């Protein structure tokens, strides 16, 4: 039989319940959070015996906890940079490329897990019912276990990074910048980095130019502007999805006092910002292709993206509520645009690789 327990942040037991370290035989599943993100936060937990927690298979838990689908955020830029250097015949060292790929994947998994841990502690994933992997909120893992897993993955990523620095000392600079930005973003006291305007910039830099430039250097290739602009373009696209997600969560995140660009702009101006953000992506993508990948691809991309964007823009324009079903529909529609753009990039890469 499960029981309820309500604790406020000032309570000595609060942290142990939130981390899940209060018991070896029970899980504290958060069922209601009041005044999240404040000193007066109160959480009601349902205390459930471990054997009563409903769990999918171990594989499913691993896939969901690691949010495998989100790996697309690093796989795509790595693939594009790898393609570029393969086609240009500049790829110098296959082994370091492999180590760098593994390192990036482990680093991303570590950041993802750490992010889930932080969002649970700060209340974000307890308020937004569709946010994060839900592994902690469903009681599959404790927050402490997720944190430990994140540290283990980070250690592997650092080992990869160190061996790469030995091979290519120039990488130390890129990794130092990434480390500073990452540490600053992850250890922000107030909010998870995704929910701050400065944090959005950190995400742009980490998943964008730092990733692509660093990966290229790890292949033993010199820095070039091409990889830098690929990173910027990708970072811009990633932020589009982030803004979309923040837009769907506008009401609860404003109520919880989270700050990000969407919350700062408000419902009406955010709609315009999203349309503008996507429009600028089409323009930047076109310019990138004109300068680095050929006019024909640029024209094709721009035409295809413009055609498929019309419905999204019109729906965004007609959107009248931040809480209705249409806002979720807009999110899905924006996500399709994101996936469509990725598909075009992959087709382009395959064309370069195979033709």
């Amino acid at each position, binding site marked *: 039989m499960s029981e309820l327990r309500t604790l406020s942040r000032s309570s000595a037991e609060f942290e142990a319940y939130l981390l899940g370290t209060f018991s070896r035989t029970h899980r504290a599943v958060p069922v209601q959070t009041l005044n999240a993100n404040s000193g*007066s936060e109160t959480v*009601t937990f349902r205390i459930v015996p471990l054997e009563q927690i409903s769990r999918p298979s171990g594989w499913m838990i691993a896939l969901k906890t690691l949010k495998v689908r989100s790996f697309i955020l690093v796989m795509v830029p790595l693939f594009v940079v790898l393609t570029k250097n393969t086609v240009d015949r500049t790829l110098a060292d296959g082994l370091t490329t492999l180590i760098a790929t593994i390192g990036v994947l482990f680093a991303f998994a570590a950041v993802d897990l750490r992010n889930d841990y932080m969002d649970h502690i700060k209340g974000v994933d307890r308020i937004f019912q569709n946010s994060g992997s839900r592994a902690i909120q469903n009681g599959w893992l404790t927050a402490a276990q997720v944190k430990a897993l994140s540290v283990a993955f980070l250690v592997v990523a650092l080992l990869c990074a160190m061996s790469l620095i030995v091979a290519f000392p120039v990488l130390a600079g890129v990794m130092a910048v990434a480390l500073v930005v990452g540490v600053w973003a992850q250890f922000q006291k107030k909010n998870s980095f995704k929910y701050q305007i400065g944090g959005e910039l950190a995400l742009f830099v980490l998943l964008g130019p730092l990733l692509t430039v660093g990966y290229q250097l790890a292949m033993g290739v010199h820095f070039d502007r091409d990889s830098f602009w690929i990173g910027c373009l990708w970072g811009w696209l990633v932020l589009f999805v982030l803004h979309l997600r923040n837009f769907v969560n506008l009401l609860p995140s404003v109520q919880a006092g989270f700050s990000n660009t969407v919350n700062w702009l408000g419902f009406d101006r955010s709609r315009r910002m999203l349309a503008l953000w996507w429009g600028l992506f089409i323009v930047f993508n076109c310019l990138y292709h004109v300068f680095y990948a050929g006019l024909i691809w640029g024209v094709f991309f721009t035409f295809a993206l413009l055609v498929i964007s019309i419905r999204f823009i019109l729906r965004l324009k007609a959107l009248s509520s931040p809480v209705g079903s249409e806002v979720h529909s807009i999110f899905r529609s924006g996500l399709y645009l994101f996936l469509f753009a990725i598909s075009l990039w992959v087709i382009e890469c395959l064309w370069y690789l195979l033709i």
Partner: protein
Amino acid sequence: MQRSVIDHKIYDSRDFPAYLPKLNKLYDDLFTGGKGFRAKLIRMMSANLSLTPQVELLLGQTIEFIHNASLLHDDLIDRSHLRRGKTAAWMKYTPEYAVLAGDYLLARVMVNLSGHGNIKLVQYTAEVISDLLEGEWLQDSVVGDFFVTLEQLDRIHNLKTASLFKWCLRAPFIAQERYDDELHRTLEEMGTLLGQLFQRSDDLLDYDIRNEEGKAILGDLKSGYLNSFGAYICQGRSRQEIDGIVKTKNLEDYYASIGGKAHFDQKLLAFDEMNKGLIQMYSHHLERLKGFLKPGEEKLIAQLQPLTEILYWRRKPS
């Protein structure tokens, strides 16, 4: 004539200027016929916390004025023709008068409360009014949206409906200058749960469930509003199915559109089961409330306990 606190006559025409045309007639119509549940809740709280009759009246008036102001505005927004079985104010007295009468009630709330002098009570009441209006605004923004989810509706109901229940529980303590944070967080949780249960039960009336008061069947759906039970039923269904469901005009067609009466009953059982979870949480918070009460106030717990029975299961108070 002495105003009777015992009868809780929260409206008295002498409280409003006699020179304003139609105002008192409009309020006479508005304030007669309501159940006054919120004012009764205030009375229960006040009696157990030993508030003076003046403060009890002030609080009772405040909550009923806010509630009735919201009804005046609501009826106009929804274009409802009837309120408590009578012609709605906006139809009888013009929309302009209905809006002004609602605004005027809210203004009187501030006048009365500021006269009392407890600035925290004034501030909290202003916050509740603001929440209520946000809820109204958001609710209006989802009219005609038949794909809205229960979670989204809960957010709206938390602003629109639960805010007043929270006020009923917290305001008497604030009026007594008891500001303990933990106490108010507990009351806030309880108010949220009561509001949610009340709203969900009210939404069930639309489907003729425990509909003792004879509320119009499928009224919400016909007005373009998918309520919480409707959203629960539509969960996981395709757009095409939902399109068919929301077009039904009577309960028989409704049952048929969702797969029969037996399926409807099954969903109702599951919905009730889900809400029993909320009732369990309410009891849990009620248990916590005990720790904040002074000697002599413990009877309040026993009186607050059956509220979920009254509000959700619509059982008559014993």
